[in-house]
């Protein structure tokens, strides 16, 4: 079975992110694979190994944005492709979903993994939207895969209310959450292979797709308002006294 996994390159979560000249700036923080996508890569590699298949990792971004792809290759993905085109520079989620759907078709994948969402824009739209463009079912927020064969997948989904067990026909798009299990570290051999890999760049023309014009427009960025917090440290002779004073202070704020 051919499996695809879609990943995004994002600033490290430890980055101090600020607005500079109207743009997002993360200083010299490293660019990494979106942490949630690592779980998706792990799931893709495990399932390809179980079923005897191959994994193509796909990303979208500027021509030099290959860090996430290289990380996924180093983890063990067989092939990588970068969707890059000036026409996609201002792409919104729906436009990105059209481009990714075309790339998934080009990779001839029948099962596609995504992370739950990206830690930069935090929308979580792409698994569902890409599935919708493909006309495939979306099986999102998957915590465990119970069964997978060329015709169907049976999973446990982590929802607000608990675990839901669902099965779906294939082809399908699956998004993976952290409960799936720790992603593997790239091996030394994998890192060497990834460093040498020539990653093909697919333009919209290569994909035969015309992504719809973006309708979601970004008007302005701002830093969160600075909260004027005066921290009051509570002291006392022992835990009982401290707790008593703290409890009184909390009650006095009338927030409970």
């Amino acid at each position, binding site marked *: 079975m051919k499996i695809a996994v879609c990943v995004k390159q994002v*600033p490290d*979560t430890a980055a*101090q992110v*600020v*607005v500079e000249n109207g743009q*997002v700036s993360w200083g010299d923080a490293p660019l990494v694979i979106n942490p949630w996508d690592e779980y998706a890569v792990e799931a893709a590699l495990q399932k390809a190994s179980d079923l005897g298949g191959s994994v193509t990792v796909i990303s979208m971004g500027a021509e030099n944005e290959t860090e996430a792809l290289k990380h996924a290759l180093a983890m063990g993905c067989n092939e990588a492709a970068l969707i890059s085109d000036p026409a996609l520079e201002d792409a919104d*989620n*729906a436009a990105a979903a059209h481009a990714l759907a075309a790339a998934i078709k080009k990779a001839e994948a029948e099962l596609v993994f995504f992370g739950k969402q990206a*830690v930069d824009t*935090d*929308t*979580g*739209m792409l*698994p569902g*939207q890409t*599935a*919708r463009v493909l006309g495939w*079912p*979306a099986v*999102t927020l998957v915590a465990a895969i119970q069964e997978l064969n060329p015709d169907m997948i*049976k999973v*446990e989904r*982590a*929802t*607000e*209310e*608990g675990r*839901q*067990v*669902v099965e*779906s026909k294939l082809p*399908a798009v699956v998004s993976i*959450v952290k*409960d799936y299990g720790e992603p593997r570290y790239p091996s030394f051999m994998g890192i060497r292979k990834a460093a040498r890999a020539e990653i093909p760049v697919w333009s919209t023309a290569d994909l035969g797709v015309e992504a719809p014009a973006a*309708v*979601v*427009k*970004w*008007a*302005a*960025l701002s*830093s*969160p308002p600075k*909260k004027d*917090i005066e*921290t*009051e*440290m509570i002291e006392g002779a022992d*835990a*009982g006294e*401290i*707790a*008593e004073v*703290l*409890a009184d*202070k*909390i009650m006095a*704020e009338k*927030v*409970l």
Partner: protein
Amino acid sequence: MTNKIWVYIDHFKGAALPASWEAVGAGLTLANDLGGGVTALVFGEGVADLGQQAFHYGADEVMLADDPTLLDYRSEPYAGLLAKLAGDSAPDVILFPTTSRGRELAGMAAVDLKSGVLVDVTALEVEGGAILATRPIYAGKLFAKVGCSAKPELITLRGRAFAKPEPDETRSGTLTEVEAVLSEDEIAVKVLDYVQADGGVSLTDAAVIVSGGRGVSNNPNLEPPGDLDEDGQEIWRAQEGFKLVGELAKVLGAAVGASRAAVDAGYIPYANQVGQTGKVVGPDVYIACGISGAIQHLAGMRTSKMIVAINKDPDAPIFKLARFGVVGDLHEIVPALTAALGEKLGK
């Protein structure tokens, strides 16, 4: 349907999520600026009562789809139905609560409707007839103002960011029944089983959260069972520590949260993780026990109205965000605080 503002009522087994009614409230505010009333969308099986509740919360029209294929939320029949209704009646705005279902449904319907989604919005304003939405990005490290140039604009609203209207049981309105668009054999996904979570308060709806970090495992006065290895002993200690956190949460009717460090160390399930790669929360009160305050954690809880921090390290970054801080051992302070607050709250 004559109203231009629609609200999708997300529910689980017929019980609406609070954020659904908050979305009705936000819809009423928009209707003040844009004209008309609010139409609530209720999909499910045996959910007519939700339609009545939507009237009580202020909707004046309800579209009700009551069908066995809609018993559990599934994206295909729900998105297909929503896109069909919106295609027929051309609303200007559809609001959703930012639940896992609301997020997915908005996204998939947007593809059918050739429109866009403004996701996890915390504030809405109307400028010259156009809606401008504020949404946190990078887990709240920044805010973006976004708009959508196509119609209908699909907007998901973050829980607890908009006020829930007071229900009025005397209100009613026009209920229209609509048909499902897919038959069961056209739907690729089947729901087989459900394992309900253990009944704790949900983090994203919680007014009060008590969270534990790595520090919960550091109680020197505990003697772990002798048959455990080193990792097992650490986890045993941590779980004893989380019992203290849980007892405080119980007295306050609070949800239990955790730092990523505590989750990654195996102390508590991922569902409890607060932060950039966990849940982003904004309760009235957030009590951080043994959490130093990594930037990823702070991003996930910094909008809490009041933060209380208990930590052994006086230099822990969490204190910078805290209204009240205690430098001390959480294993002594937390049980004492549970007792003191329990007494004052009459519990």
